Structures are given as structure tokens and as C-alpha cells.
């Protein structure tokens, strides 16, 4: 089957305006065409007949909404685009029931929906921002690892992450350790002192401390792994070339 290659914005506009019965091929490639500034129409009749679509290296920051009308789309290439988030409808479980192959490698995505477990093939290698529990499988030499892992996730319970690192940075003796103490100590009781002691021993080595913060209003707990390193001497910072 011959692919219809679209190389220029003029050809793209022509393709946008094609009537359904004029579509030459269900395999369409826009690869390497700069689509970062393209205004996508609300509807592209030709889309309804597309089965394979190559949008790789198109400088896309978002997945074009018009793709949600590709009811027959089975293979979608989105790799090498600065896409940060995949829309909820981009899934065989939502707007693309025929989708079986998706490649989002080399994008800026940070997570994957578990509904991608319905795909036959999913590629998401070299996504530097991808959550580590996915990334270890996405970058595996075995291309089936990621989809197998996602299938496992789909069977179990998914939860909000609720964990991060809190790092204090600053010069020596500025109050970083007091800030940490203030954060991890509970608020004072009715008869307790509100003020903490001001003078304390200088931090000699990095403090690494997990803390679970439970807010009063019944919101979910937040787990923070605090890092409080010894402050850098002022003269070291002031002689730094990076300050320019």
C-alpha cells in the first residue's frame, strides 16, 4: 500500500480540504513537516479514512484534537515530538477503538494511562521525563516489556503518587535546619511554646529524612523525603562563575 507523503504546508492545506471519497491512501505521513504553528481545522474529512498516521518529528507540543475523529486509525507514530501530555481520548478505550500500535518514544511525557494496555504494541523509549516505574520497561531491550507491565498495572489498583523530595539550598547559617524543624514538628498544642530555640548546632553532614505530612482538612497525606545539606560557605558561592 502506497503512503501519501505530505511535505509542505501547501500540501497539508490541500489534504485538509480533501473530500472523503478523494482520499488516495489510508496511510499518511506528515513526518518532519513543522506542525508547531499549524491551526488544525475542527474537522478533516480525510482523517476519517486514515489507518496509519505518521506525525513523527513534527515539533508537535500537543496531540491535535482532530485525531479523535480517526475511528479507523490503527497505527500512530508520535515519536520525536516535544509532547508533554497525552490527551485522555488517545486510547483504544476512548476515541480510537481501532488503535493497536502507538509510538511515543523521544517525547516529553511523564506518565502513561493504563488503558494503553489494550494496545498490541506500545513504544515509549527514551522519554527522559517518564516516571521511573514505566521507564525501566520502556527502555528495555525487549519491546514487549512495557505493554506486559501495563497489563499488570491495569489488573491492579492505581493510586496518586503523593511522594516527592524537598531540598533546602542556601548558604551556611541562614536557617535551613530551622525551616526543616519547623516543617516536621507538629504545630504547638494549646499550652506549648510557639517559638523554637534559635541557636542550634551547625549541620555537619546532610540530613535525609522522610516525613509524612497529614493536613488537618482530611486531604491526602503527602510524603516528603527532605534533604538538608550543610550550607555552602558564602565565599565559595561568591566566587562562582555560574552566578553571572
Amino acid at each position: 500500500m502506497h503512503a501519501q507523503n505530505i511535505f509542505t504546508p501547501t500540501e497539508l492545506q490541500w489534504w485538509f480540504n480533501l473530500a472523503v471519497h478523494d482520499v488516495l491512501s489510508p496511510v499518511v505521513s506528515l513526518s518532519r513537516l513543522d506542525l508547531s504553528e499549524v491551526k488544525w481545522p475542527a474537522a478533516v474529512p480525510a482523517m476519517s479514512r486514515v489507518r496509519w498516521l505518521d506525525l513523527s518529528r513534527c515539533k508537535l507540543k500537543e496531540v491535535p484534537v482532530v485525531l479523535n475523529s480517526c475511528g479507523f486509525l490503527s497505527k500512530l507514530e508520535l515519536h520525536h515530538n516535544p509532547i508533554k501530555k497525552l490527551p485522555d481520548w488517545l486510547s483504544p478505550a476512548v476515541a480510537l477503538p481501532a488503535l493497536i500500535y502507538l509510538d511515543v518514544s523521544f517525547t516529553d511525557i511523564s506518565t502513561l494511562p493504563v488503558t494503553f494496555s489494550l494496545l498490541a504494541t506500545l513504544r515509549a523509549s527514551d522519554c527522559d521525563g517518564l516516571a521511573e516505574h514505566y521507564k525501566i520497561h520502556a527502555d528495555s531491550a525487549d519491546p514487549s516489556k512495557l505493554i506486559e507491565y501495563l497489563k499488570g498495572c491495569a489488573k491492579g489498583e492505581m493510586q496518586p503518587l503523593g511522594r516527592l523530595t524537598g531540598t533546602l539550598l542556601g548558604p551556611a547559617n541562614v536557617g535551613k535546619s530551622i525551616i526543616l524543624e519547623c516543617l516536621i514538628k507538629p504545630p504547638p498544642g494549646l499550652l506549648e511554646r510557639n517559638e523554637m530555640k534559635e541557636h542550634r548546632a551547625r549541620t555537619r553532614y546532610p540530613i535525609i529524612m522522610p516525613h509524612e505530612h497529614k493536613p488537618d482538612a482530611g486531604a491526602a497525606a503527602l510524603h516528603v523525603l527532605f534533604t538538608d545539606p550543610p550550607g555552602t560557605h558564602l565565599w565559595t558561592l561568591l566566587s562562582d562563575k555560574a552566578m553571572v
Partner: protein
Amino acid sequence: MIVCVCAGDAQLAPAVQFFVSAENTVFLVVINGAGLDQESIQAEASGVPSNSKKIARSWLSYVSDQVKNYRQRCISILVATHRDTAEKNKTFPRDRKRLVELCVELQAAYPDANLETEPLFVNALNRKEGRSALWSRMRGGASWLLKDQMVPKFINACGDFMEKYIEDPSKPQWCSYDEFVQLPMVKDLTRDQRSSALASLRKMGYIILLPNGTIIMKPQWFAAAASLTLSPPPGPNDGNVAPLHIQTDPQNPGFITGAGLKKQMLSLTADLKEMEWSSDAKTRDDQVSKLVEFLADIGIILRDPLDQVSLPLARERCLRMLCNFISFSRC
């Protein structure tokens, strides 16, 4: 305290870098806010940026580099301390105005650091207002960073397990991969889930993976020990605190025998609860030997064939090695 003798990428206390490349991080960049207005007036008159500005710029520059290099998600918050002093000296409104201006300037200069527009000016000694203000901003940052971040239940369970593990002095500070997969939180997981759990715990900073495959289960223990071998002689800011500095051979600076290093490590850290030294002499000896082995594994100390240990002849070089190791281990 670790002082880097060279400007640039080795400027930070090396152990900081264990965590600056974590997956989701809120950075609190702390400066002294009291007298900021006066400092800024003097800086404008002299044409040289104020110390506070230089400090904040230096850290935000570093954070920006990390974020770009490792595509990590972060929020930075500029926190000024000593609000009580500013209020007492009646400079608070002017200091605060300067702080806001500084924050806007820094935000424009370091977009990758994701600095929040609104700085915090706190009296961190105040457990009510200070605490509330700090947590409010921490939670705001967390909510943005963690939005849509869903994980399988076992990832959170592993994090919970590690939080308890870290605080239990009866648990070992390190283990092998085979021992790791026998831990209660891991042993019932599938092979794929185990890989994910290990990778996530490492990325979140709960564990450290050494090149030889050893898993450091208590990062606090390892960071304290690593700092020990890199700490300089006592400085003017150390006050009455006993310095953590290893004396090398005066005739052969930078060198120390293996036995001498172990002896000093034990004596210098005898009062550090994080080191969790055993009360049994034999076990304690094994612990310190392992620690030296781990530090050698990441190149902080170098062994020669006669088992003489070399502490960094050039601390700069050593810091760079550690930074490189840490960056590598988290990528």
C-alpha cells in the same frame, strides 16, 4: 561541611546531589531576608550584585542545569528567613518589596528552575504561622508536580515500607539484590514489578544503588559517611560543633592507612546516631570495613596495592567523581 575549592559544577556539597536529580522535587532556596533593602541599596551604589542575589542566582543556576540535564520535574520557592528581625528593625515592608523584586528578576533569569512568582518571608522559629506558610507552599508545589501522576499501589507501599525501614536501627544499612527481593514489600511482586519498585525507590531517593550492585537502604547513613571523607578542617562557622575531618599522614598528605581511616571514622562518628554502629566490636569492625569498601566503589577513596587508602589529594577531583557517579546512578 564540604567546601568545594573550585567554582562550577563541583560547587555543592556532594551529598546534595544525591537528591537534586530526584523525580519530583520542591527546592527551597533560602536567603536571609532581614536587611535585604539596605543590602540592595549598597549593591546598587557599588554596581555589584548583593550577596543574597548572588547566592540565589548561584543555586538557581545549578537547579536549572540539573533540570535540563535530567528532565526532572521541579518547583523552586525563594524563602527569606529572619522575618522577625526585619519586623523588629522596622525594615519588613522595604525588605519584602526587595524580595518580591528579586524573585521576579530570578524567575525571568532561570525559567527552567520553575521559580514561583511569590516568595516566602518567614520566621521559621514560629511553629504556627511559619509552619503553616511553609506547608501551604509545599503542598501547592506538590499538587502541581504530582498532578496526574498515578502509580500502581505497590509503588506507594514500597515507599511506605522504606520510610519505616530507614528509621529502624535494627535493619541493615545495605543489602544485595537477592536480599532486597526477599523483603516483605517485594517478595510477592512479579519480576517486572520488582524492577519497577527498585527503579522508583532509587529515583525517589529512598535507596542508593552502588556500581557493585549493593543497595544502600539507608541513604542518611551513607551520606554522613561520604561527607566525613570529604570534610575540610574546621571553619569559622563551625562554632562548638566537633569537626568531621579525617587527618591524613602529615608526611604524605592525602594518604592514610586503611586501619587508620577506619579508626578515625569510628572515633569521629561515635556520637552520630545515623551511623548506627553496633555495640559489638567485631560487627562494628565489619561495618566500617564495608563502608570503606563502598566509598572506594564510588571512587571517593582510592586504594593502593599496599592497602593504603588515599583520601582525595585534590578534593575538587574527588567531588567531580562523586558528582559524576551520582548523576550516572540516577539517570
